[in-house]
């Protein structure tokens, strides 16, 4: 049998190095600011969860967390739902302008947020959605919808067209076929796509902060404000930072089997 | 030039099971003779793929020894066993041409270039791939790709056995026949031991010299297609082989006659007395149950099935369902039909196993 030790060692080494900055953050969240500034230590001297308690007890932080989760969830749902029929169409049919449309969709992934921030601000203000979770959820569609279409199109391609034809022969109407037969076949793809949409929406901060102010302030914006107001409250920031990692970790735990099952985005 | 010996091979996923039911593969002794084509036939889950994997090296059996010739290869990894394998779907190297695909195993064994070229040309010729040698393997049809998969196995002259795991699964029905004939020709030309796993009896019976019928992890009967047809040793073989399968009637057997509820019939041999209370059946294939205008047992006709080359009558004889064959000159069939049962081809089964009788 192949030598399994080398890959495992390399992988473990990579994970170890990877975790160092994260460990550092966790460590700092458990220290007091005085402790942090007093010198470099590998372990917290008197670990305490007081900063976490401060966050949980502060309605601004909690509200911010809820806001972030809300717009990410809404955006993921919209992106996947809207992308599904489009992905099917792109893969199964040939239509006027299809290749150009697909490429145009991809170009929206190249939109630098820094450039669009100002026009977005004006647009959402004009339609009265400024400072709502809907603004962020819709704004993130700019890049998440094309990404969802891109990934889902690959998964649709992995399902043989014979299945569509057989269902038609068996008398299924298209909606029934799509919901009862097709969707379960790409359940894997839907899970993976939802994960990526969640991730890219959760981590995007520039648009999220530009389009919100007091009512719908996302968690990371609360962080940035605390940053400037309280000066260098490193341990509070560290605690907040650690908390931002949790939803993502939970989501990927839920879709781990979809990823482990593998996808090639087409026929292997 | 080797034969493969299974010496008490058995496989279970959980150590040594207490009884038979714990085995994926029940203990089996068999010698696969060099140069013959074998089919491993059985329904899904019967253990045929497990057995193939034991031979190929993907699975190490929990009990028993596997011998290639005199060599104990039970624990030897696949690449050292000198076998070739063709899988359910074509396995080819996408980025290479057909010629490069066929040359690959020889290149890895550092054969000289001229030897490789000659061998590739030979095998390509045998498999009708010569025209496509310089095309990219990826663009060919499924049956061509399976031929390439097979070819890669055949290029190596040290191959002692070729294993097939349901290789025609993804092939167009129209091309299956062609590919099967090709396999037979290759077999005759190269005189290799071939083991072919399938759940399709037509494939098995047309391809193989000998068929191993498996059910529920056990090799139920090993024999030529003729033996399996004329003398099934187990009711499963009678039922699985033949289309439709054998007719079975519960009976009491005395001497050379069988007493079925409602009538009596003659048997082709004399049987010793059988213990009471056990499952005794009489089995006879529809091919040997004939509708007749002459004398016979009266049966109610349920329906007639016209298959083109033969016509079958589904009848009820004294309440027992039977399938009978109608002679070609019997144009129409009424509600009743006389049937004649060929005693010489009637068998007796005790607890599903055939009982041998003495000549009458």
């Amino acid at each position, binding site marked *: 049998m*192949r030598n399994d030790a080398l*890959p495992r060692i*390399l*992988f473990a080494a990579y*994970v170890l190095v*990877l*975790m*160092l900055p*994260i460990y*550092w*953050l966790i460590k*700092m969240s458990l220290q007091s600011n005085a402790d942090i500034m007093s*010198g*470099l230590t590998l372990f917290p001297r008197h670990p305490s969860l007081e900063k976490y308690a401060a966050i949980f007890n502060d309605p601004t932080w909690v509200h911010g967390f809820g806001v972030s989760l809300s717009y990410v969830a809404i955006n993921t749902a919209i992106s996947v739902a*809207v*992308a599904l*029929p*489009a992905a099917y*169409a792109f893969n*199964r*049919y*040939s239509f*006027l302008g299809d290749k150009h*449309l697909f490429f145009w*969709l*991809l170009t929206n992934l*190249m*939109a630098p*947020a*820094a*450039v*669009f921030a100002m026009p977005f601000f004006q647009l959402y203000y004009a339609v009265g959605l400024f400072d709502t979770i809907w603004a962020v959820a819709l704004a993130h*569609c700019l890049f998440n919808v*094309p990404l969802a279409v891109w990934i889902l199109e690959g998964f649709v391609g992995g399902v043989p067209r014979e299945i569509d034809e057989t269902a038609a022969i068996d008398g299924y109407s298209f909606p029934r076929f799509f919901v009862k037969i097709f969707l379960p076949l790409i359940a894997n793809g839907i899970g993976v796509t939802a994960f990526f949409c969640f991730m890219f929406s*959760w*981590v995007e*901060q520039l648009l999220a902060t530009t389009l919100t102010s007091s009512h719908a302030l996302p968690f*990371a914006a609360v*962080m*940035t404000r605390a940053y400037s107001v309280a000066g260098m409250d490193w341990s509070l920031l560290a605690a907040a930072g650690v908390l931002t990692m949790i939803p*993502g*970790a939970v989501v*990927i735990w839920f879709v*781990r089997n979809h*990823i*482990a*099952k*593998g996808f*090639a*985005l087409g026929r*292997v | 030039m080797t034969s493969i010996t299974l010496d008490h091979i058995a496989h279970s996923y959980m150590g040594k099971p207490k009884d038979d039911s714990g085995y994926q593969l029940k203990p089996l002794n068999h010698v696969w003779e060099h140069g013959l084509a074998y089919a491993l036939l059985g329904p899904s889950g019967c253990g045929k793929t497990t057995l193939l994997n034991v031979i190929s090296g993907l699975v190490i059996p929990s009990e028993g020894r596997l011998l290639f010739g005199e060599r104990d290869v039970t624990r030897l990894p696949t690449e050292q066993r000198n*076998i*070739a394998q063709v899988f*359910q779907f074509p*396995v080819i190297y*996408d980025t290479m041409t057909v010629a490069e695909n066929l040359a*690959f*195993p020889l290149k*890895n064994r550092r054969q000289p270039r001229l030897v490789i070229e000659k061998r590739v040309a030979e095998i390509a010729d045998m498999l009708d791939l010569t025209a496509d040698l310089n095309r990219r393997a990826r663009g060919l049809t499924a049956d061509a790709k399976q031929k390439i998969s097979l070819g*890669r196995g055949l290029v190596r002259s040290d191959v002692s056995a070729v294993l097939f795991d349901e290789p025609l699964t993804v092939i167009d029905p129209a091309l299956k026949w062609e590919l099967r004939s090709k396999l037979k020709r290759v077999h005759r030309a190269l005189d290799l031991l071939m083991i072919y796993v399938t759940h399709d009896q037509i494939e098995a019976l047309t391809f193989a010299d000998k068929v191993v019928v498996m059910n529920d992890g056990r090799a139920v009967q090993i024999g030529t297609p003729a033996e399996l047809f004329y003398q099934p040793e187990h009711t499963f073989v009678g039922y699985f082989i033949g289309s439709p399968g054998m007719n079975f009637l519960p009976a009491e057997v005395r001497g050379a006659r069988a007493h079925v509820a409602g009538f009596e019939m003659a048997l082709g041999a004399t049987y010793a007395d059988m213990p009471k209370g056990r499952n005794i059946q009489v089995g006879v294939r529809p091919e040997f149950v004939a509708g007749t205008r002459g004398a016979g047992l009266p049966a109610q006709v349920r329906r007639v099935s016209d298959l083109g080359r033969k016509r079958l009558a589904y009848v009820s004889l004294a309440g027992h369902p039977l399938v009978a064959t109608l002679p070609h000159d019997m144009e129409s069939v009424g509600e009743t039909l006389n049937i004649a049962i060929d005693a010489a081809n009637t068998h007796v089964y005790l607890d599903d196993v055939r009982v041998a009788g003495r000549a009458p």
Partner: protein
Amino acid sequence: MTAKPINNRAWFFVLPVLGFVLFSSIVPTMTVVNYSVQDTMGANNFFWNGDQWFRDLLNPTTAIGQRFNDALFRTLAFSLTCLVIEIPLGIAIALCAPRKGWAVGPSLVVVALPMLIPWNVVGTIWQIFTREDIGLYGAALNGLGLHYNVTQDAISAWTTIVVMDVWHWTPLVILLSYAGLRAIPDAYYQAARIDGASRWAVFLNIELPKLQKVLVIAVLLRFMQTFMIYTEPFVVTGGGPGSATTFLSIDLDKIALGQVDLGNAAAMSLVYYLITLTVCYVFFTIMTQLERRRDV
């Protein structure tokens, strides 16, 4: 491979997508185009400037042209460096990742973690991590004798941003490659063993070709993201020291908001967008052509 049926009613399937994306892209795009061809004397007084902004921009002898040129090359160099490191590293780690057993789930979570952190937090983490007084990275490098100072030394700043990007985004390549690898049926590996193929031959002839589609996505996404990088370097170096890490996005922001020079900024963003578009279009076309040629 049979051709796809032509069905123009498929446009109905695509309309929702079109709606959502257009809403967010048409108005901003038009605004940017608008700004790029106008000049302002302040207080909302615009007058037509034609293609003057563009000409100045693409002329390396003008101040703005020089600045744009520098930022462009800086960003391209950065993108290339990151791609050259992240793609092979990502594939290599994906090959080493556990494929069965209890370790699969936790491994995926841990490996993906850096990707799941909001970008300003990533910046903050590295800002702290690179300080020589309270950060492990800064302290360790200085302890080893290297003169590491992320705010004052250009090389330190550059390498730090690259390391940060590799740390942050290699997981994307790993996850995509891992999923691609897991989709390869076992039979291919068995056949390769029977054929006597070496580990390297298996990688070249089986794994890499079958990873092609996911790698296209990985490369394109990574190129786009590195080319447009903004938040992370901004938080850690602010674009400094000097303009050492002032990549296109940051420079753009400085011009647009800092100098309120909307015309130049808008023209810059359009040119910038067109460059990204061209590179991606070329790559995309090459990959689809290669694939089509393989099937012939």
